[in-house]
């Protein structure tokens, strides 16, 4: 059974209809990428799944209908959304940012172990743990946002353009760590990216979204082999 199963997902901002019926699935343990140009509706799709905005359609997480759940309740089921723009708490310290997420985890288990795990993936966060999050560099804030999601001990991570605004070297570092997290099988991932090359390297499968509709799906290899995708999104 798929971990996430979405049927006819529609979403709005006020009266503006942005998603026009999207269907997709995500297998447990997989990384699935959603590709698309700026303004295609990628961020909106993640927001609709995690309940941040008004939506309709059918969303099943681990078999359970969650499309009427509030954002907080979906998070508490183990869906960790790393939002566009990272959304760190600027006036809290790095450690306090992580502690906020630790309060809502599914199991109250090993919080200390999770701190160690996050600091293991991102040693720079540990060096800066008492520093105000607003003073971190863009790359460090992205690490903090991912670390905060890990503190929820999630089953599914929704990642919104983790490469946004970062230097190529830092993007590579972050994607290495995401690959490591995925390999350790701690969480499945739904990854939204404009940077298709980097996303397809991490993902097993991908969907292409254009103006609020899913127009293509396939394995990462199939995407790389596709003429149009190559020219429009990979640039060679």
């Amino acid at each position: 059974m798929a971990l996430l199963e979405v049927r006819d997902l529609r979403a709005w901002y006020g009266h503006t209809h942005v998603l026009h019926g999207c269907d997709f699935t995500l297998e447990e343990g997989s990384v699935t990428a959603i590709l698309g140009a700026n303004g295609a509706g990628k961020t909106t799709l993640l927001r609709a799944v995690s309940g941040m905005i008004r939506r309709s359609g059918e969303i099943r997480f681990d078999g359970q209908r969650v499309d009427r759940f509030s954002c907080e309740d979906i998070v508490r089921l183990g869906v960790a959304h790393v939002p566009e723009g990272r959304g760190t708490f600027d006036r809290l310290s790095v450690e306090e940012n992580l502690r906020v997420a630790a309060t809502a985890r599914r199991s109250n288990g090993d919080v200390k172990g999770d701190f160690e795990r996050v600091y293991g993936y991102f040693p720079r966060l540990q060096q800066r743990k008492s520093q105000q999050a607003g003073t971190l560099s863009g790359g460090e804030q992205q690490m903090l946002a991912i670390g905060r999601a890990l503190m929820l001990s999630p089953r599914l991570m929704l990642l919104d353009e983790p490469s946004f605004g970062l230097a190529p070297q830092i993007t590579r570092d972050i994607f290495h760590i995401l690959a490591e997290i995925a390999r350790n099988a701690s969480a499945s991932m739904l990854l939204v990216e404009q940077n298709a090359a980097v996303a397809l390297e991490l993902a097993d499968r991908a969907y292409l979204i254009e103006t609020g509709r899913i127009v293509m799906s396939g394995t990462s290899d199939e995407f790389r082999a596709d003429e149009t995708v190559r020219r429009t999104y990979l640039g060679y």
Partner: protein
Amino acid sequence: MELFVQQVITGLATGGIYASIALAVVMIYQAIDHFNFSQGEMAMFSTFVAWQLIVWGVPFWIAFFLTVAVSFVAGLFLFRVILKPIHDGPALSQIVVFIGLLCIFNSLAGTLWDFTVKPFPSPFPEGNIGSSLVSGHDLGMIGVTLAMLLAVYVFFRFSTMGLLVRAAAQNPASARLCGVRILWVTALGWGLAAAIGAVAGMLVAHKVFLEPNMMYSIIVYGFAAAVVGGLDSPGGAVVGGFLVGVIDNLCGVFVPAGDELKLTFALVLIVAVLMFRPTGLFGKRVVKRV
């Protein structure tokens, strides 16, 4: 010199009033990220509840703690019932609601208890201490304010709930993505602010006498103290309160015609501090990289 010292001490005593109000202002600011203009009237209303209980023969301290508890619950429900529907609306709509609440509390208190001035008892020893101008009530008030400050500090700094209140105020969307039930957390902030305001009101009422308009000028000084000290710093707010009290008092005594200009001095102080330190004396500068 002796006069100067004496006036500083008197100023500290008045400053205790402003400090306790400023603490409530900071509490609500931490919970909702802006001012609640009806805060003074909420405190006044709580004080009337205490007064009514005392008139009915309830002993002072029982009335005191009962009022604090009732105010906490009332603050919680005020948010859940009236403010929840507009809590993510534009800031201006919220301000309009706050001003509406201000008028409602004021006229409701006037209707229930009329506008005559009422004495409010003090739990502390009457009269001045030694030959000073400081009364037992002044000292008690300063003590209670410092105790509340300690409690607020411990709450924000060390408790998980305090951390969640700060997170929810700073970035509600992110807090929800961390699984924080922000509506309850914000409601809790309202409850605590109402409780602190109630304590402040009951201490103030003994000095200025109880009537529906008793908070009018005090709340301005309270806001001034909070802004001067730093809106995200409970300690700063209390220091700001004492500072405003002392400066205000010194101006009244040592500057010609200072008595009429007192409120002006407080406002000049706000502007001056903000020109040089926009986040207040003790507020954290939010350093943002661009």
